């Protein structure tokens, strides 16, 4: 694991090698047959298998006060147990099916209630703020959970630059629609493309992470490369993967799982041990643990409780 503390000797954001340059450098090294030397420098604290998977390292990571000190789930589990229906409904399949997914180049369009519709290149977006490592719990609605060192920065950094109009009350996220690359999209399991949504105040909350990396390197394809959302106090499906569009809208947007089954999957879908829909949500299985553990309200992120004061969470689930 790479957990860098920010001491004065650490690289300032302006000193961080831009990712595109970094990747080019890696390509160059590979070209002259020095990839083994480059790989040797990657994360000295990663296990050999994890080193082999971390194709590139994100430098200048800042520590985050939001990080948990809980035991981190092995990277191999997080990259081989994926609910990514665009590839397959079987959790062990996205790892191989996403191998050749093209996550570069990547454009994110900004639309809806904004003064100017925008199209940002991913490399541009990644320079909006210095990358932070945030070790978050993630709780799936199916009853399992993981602890992952994600890399990204608060989504608010992007929203600030998009300057949404005051009439925008919600943010809608659209994932890529590419049945050619994503075999799951050739089946009509869900209504593609995948869409998710947050209320504006939820989207602006500092915990809400725009994520582009994990375990010290870039996001694995099967984990939503190159750009995804992480909303740690909500069930995993709220954290949309492979985002191509962010829209600012006046009304609560339609979201994929909510449309598929409105009774079981609510728009808010905050982790809540007291509200039982699809499953009993009172306990969960942390991957790697034998005994179930109790599920915490808001997945233990109590700081978001204020967002829902006065709301009946049994009704607005």
């Amino acid at each position: 694991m790479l957990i860098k503390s920010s001491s004065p000797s650490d690289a300032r954001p302006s000193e961080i090698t831009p990712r595109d340059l970094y990747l080019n450098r890696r390509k160059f090294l590979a070209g002259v047959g020095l990839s083994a030397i480059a790989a040797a420098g990657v994360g000295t604290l990663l296990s050999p298998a994890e080193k082999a998977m971390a194709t590139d390292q994100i430098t200048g990571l800042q520590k985050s006060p939001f990080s948990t000190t809980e035991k981190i789930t092995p990277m191999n589990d997080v990259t081989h147990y994926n609910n990514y229906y665009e590839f397959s409904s079987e959790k062990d399949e996205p790892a191989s099916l996403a191998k050749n997914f093209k996550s570069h180049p990547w454009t994110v369009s900004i639309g809806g209630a904004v003064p100017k519709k925008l199209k940002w290149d991913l490399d541009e977006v990644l320079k909006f703020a210095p990358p932070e490592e945030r070790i978050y719990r993630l709780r799936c609605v199916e009853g399992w959970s993981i602890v992952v060192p994600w890399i990204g920065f608060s989504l608010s950094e992007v929203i600030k630059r998009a300057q949404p109009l005051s009439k925008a009350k919600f943010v809608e996220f659209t994932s890529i629609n590419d049945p050619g690359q994503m075999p799951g999209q050739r089946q009509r399991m869900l209504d593609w493309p995948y869409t998710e949504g947050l209320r504006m105040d939820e989207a602006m909350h500092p915990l809400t992470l725009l994520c582009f990396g994990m375990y010290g390197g870039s996001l694995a394809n099967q984990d939503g490369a190159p750009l995804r959302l992480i909303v740690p106090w909500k069930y995993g499906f709220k954290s949309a993967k492979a985002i191509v569009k962010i829209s600012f809208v006046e009304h609560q947007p339609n979201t994929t799982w909510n449309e598929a089954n409105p009774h079981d999957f609510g728009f808010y879908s905050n982790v809540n041990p007291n509200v039982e829909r699809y499953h009993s949500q009172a306990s969960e299985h942390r991957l790697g643990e034998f005994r179930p553990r109790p599920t915490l309200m808001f997945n233990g992120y109590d700081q978001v409780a204020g967002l829902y004061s006065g709301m009946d969470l049994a009704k607005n689930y």
Partner: protein
Amino acid sequence: MIRIFKVAVFILCLVPLGLLAWRFFGAHPTDMTNWGVGLGPNPVEALEHGTGDWTLRFLLITLAITPLRKLLRVPALVKFRRMLGLFAFFYGCLHFATYLWVDKFFNVHEILADIVKRKYITVGFLAFVLLIPLAVTSTTGWIRRLGGKRWQALHRLIYFSAIAGVIHYLWLVKADIHKPLEYGAVLAVLLAYRVFVWQRQLFAARSAVTTLPRKIAVE
């Protein structure tokens, strides 16, 4: 001869359990810290799904015996039916035990709430409960005690158990109903065969009744 076959089938029926156990205990069965690792990132789910799948498969295999022995004209197949049915019950017990133990850790409050509130668990529980009287009365002694007709009527509960089992699977998946539909399709064929036979018998009986007086009249 049939004895040898029975032993072979018995061992074959234990293979799925053996494979699950092999993956669960891994290469070093005495090292408890490694238990479950061979079942992937979520061994609890793998055990639950593995035992559930095999319960459904054995139910369908048991239901296939009667059509197969008639269509293939191998009456001896019926000698394996009880064993296969009991294996369906056996894997059902393992499935239920996995849920009670590794999934819920005998949390009675949560388990009862699950059975009452969650319809896929209610129907799964029903599928399991329906198999209990069948397992109990599977002995030759019970067939004699109940009488063939009544015993046969009781054991038609397996149809409802299998239907409930498929619905249990159908309701528990989030979106991809592909696999439960496959089980459902096989079950539909097996039940359709029974409806067909029953209709034909009914028709034969009715025509027997109507043709009988005419025959007498002709004579």
